[in-house]
């Protein structure tokens, strides 16, 4: 089985008031095609740092990050930006849609950034939003959507450029139990259906049954659930 995402010996240290703090300590992770990983841990355990490094937002102090088999270290800002655009899909805690774009335009923006022609992006975005059961909301602004709808738009946006890996940062935090489950279910369907990988950082134990593996971030390392 191919590993879409590999983290090898990741170490991250921060300078904190003169002393050095180790947030991540020789962290290893391999995520295969079609696999969904849940990462749990108390606040302050370094989940955000882990996500930033895996998501090509932050360069680790030590170790290597490989996306589809190639290292993403020592790349320029522009190359990393391209990588996030095409290979990585982000789903944030509170959807974080652009307030002045209509639902379909949220998706067309990322397609546009990736150089897709308009006709193609219009078709693909409509198709994705249909899968998310949002066909009736194409022309709505985010402030008119419910929390669950917003999060579904965010999932569609993350999938728009057909990325290899999805990262979700507490995707259910702002949703009630039923909607939260719906959202993770949708992520799971897409990942399994299209042979992608997903890493979900979460506090929400109700979504764990939908994931293939549950890992805990403890003392800078990822350990399997008990």
């Amino acid at each position, binding site marked *: 089985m191919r590993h879409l995402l590999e983290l090898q010996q990741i170490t991250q240290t*921060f300078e*904190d008031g003169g002393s050095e*703090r180790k*947030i991540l300590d020789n962290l290893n992770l391999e995520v295969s095609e079609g696999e969904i990983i849940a990462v749990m841990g108390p606040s*302050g*355990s*370094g989940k*955000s*740092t882990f*996500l*930033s490094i895996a*998501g090509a*937002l*932050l360069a680790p102090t030590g170790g290597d990050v490989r996306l589809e088999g190639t290292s993403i270290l020592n790349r320029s*800002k*522009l190359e990393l*930006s*391209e*990588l*996030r*655009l*095409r290979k*990585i899909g*982000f789903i*944030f*805690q509170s959807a*974080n849609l*652009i*307030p*002045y*774009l209509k639902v379909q*335009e949220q998706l*067309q*923006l*990322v397609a*546009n*950034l*990736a150089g897709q022609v308009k006709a193609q992006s219009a078709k693909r975005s409509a198709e994705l939003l249909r899968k998310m059961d949002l066909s009736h909301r194409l022309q709505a*602004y985010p402030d008119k959507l419910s929390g669950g709808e917003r999060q579904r738009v965010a999932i569609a*946006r*993350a999938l728009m*450029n057909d990325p290899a890996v999805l990262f979700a*940062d507490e995707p259910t935090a702002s949703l009630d139990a039923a909607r939260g489950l719906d959202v993770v279910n949708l992520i799971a369907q897409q990942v399994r259906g299209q042979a992608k990988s997903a890493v979900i950082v979460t506090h929400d134990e109700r979504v764990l049954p939908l994931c293939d593996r549950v890992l805990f971030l403890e003392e800078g390392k990822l350990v399997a659930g008990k």
Partner: protein
Amino acid sequence: MFLALREMRFAKARYILIAIIMVLVAFLVLFVTGLAQGLAYDNAASVKNMAATHFVMEDNSNHRFTRSQIDEEQLDAAAAVVGDQNVEPLGVSMTTVIPEGETVKLDITLLAVRPEGWLMPELTSGTKFSDLSKRYVLVDQSMAEDGIDIGTVLVDQASGAEWTVNGFVANESFSHTPAVFLSEQDWIDLQMQSPGHPGADEAASNTRYNAIAVKDSADQLTHLQEVLPGTEIITKSEAISAIPGYKEEQGSLLMMIGFLFAISAFVLAVFFYVITIQKTSQFGILKAIGTRTSYLAKSVALQVLVLSVGSLALSILIVQLFKAVLPDSMPFQLGWLTMVITSVSFIVMSLGGSLFSVWKVTKIDALDAIGRTAA
């Protein structure tokens, strides 16, 4: 440019407010520029209207018509070099006249030209003077407001000479005084009455002008200078700048325009900086999902460009409206070239004002999207 325009569509009220302020500033820039040009024209209209490209003036006259003296021999020498048809004598004298039978005094500038020469302005009414009709003058249209009409006799306060108004010309003034054109012969007669010219014979043989107007002779200027020692050849714009009050007036107005430009750039810079700071987290998210910094910077610049171009277009319209209703006493002139130059500078200044925001955008970190990374 997907983002820039859609954001403006969404936050209409905010951008309309900015646009209104920019329209006002752009209007003020264009309006003051028009007034400055209008004043400049009003100040020096007669010289500006002349077909001459250069003027020959006496050395040490500081380029001032009224200080310079040129005699007949020099005129002949100049004519010999560049050709009779390319030189014209010019007399300039600022004086005060009293319309006969009235007590008001009017400050005017006497401009002496050859009746058939190319310095002679077009008439708007009345008849031209010929060499035969002595002691007739043509006056600027603005003098009609002071009760001057065709047939009115003007008495020169200094010399007592009397001239009858024979016609009107339009837009002729010198140092903000209306121009009164008189013929070369009347000018010579006037000279004979001044001290220093006691005898008629001497005056006739040594007529004094103030300058020689030259045209179509740019390639022969060095030669001209050689045959005319004790004189200097200056360009028309140098002569205009030396008209009393011209440079000072334009300096003040230019200062105002400069400040308006700087203020508009600053106002824009502050507006956009505040808006950009408000959107920091949004820009962070956009960067996290792979938006290039250059794309965001272009987006900010495009918004400024759209706003400044749109505001300019609107303010040009308003300026044209104002131009139509302004009274004659407020001279206003805004040619296409000036308008284009002003508009381009305004846009450049606006874009300059957005640079600070663009810089801010480049500093925003995509990590903001994930929240605090330092645990």
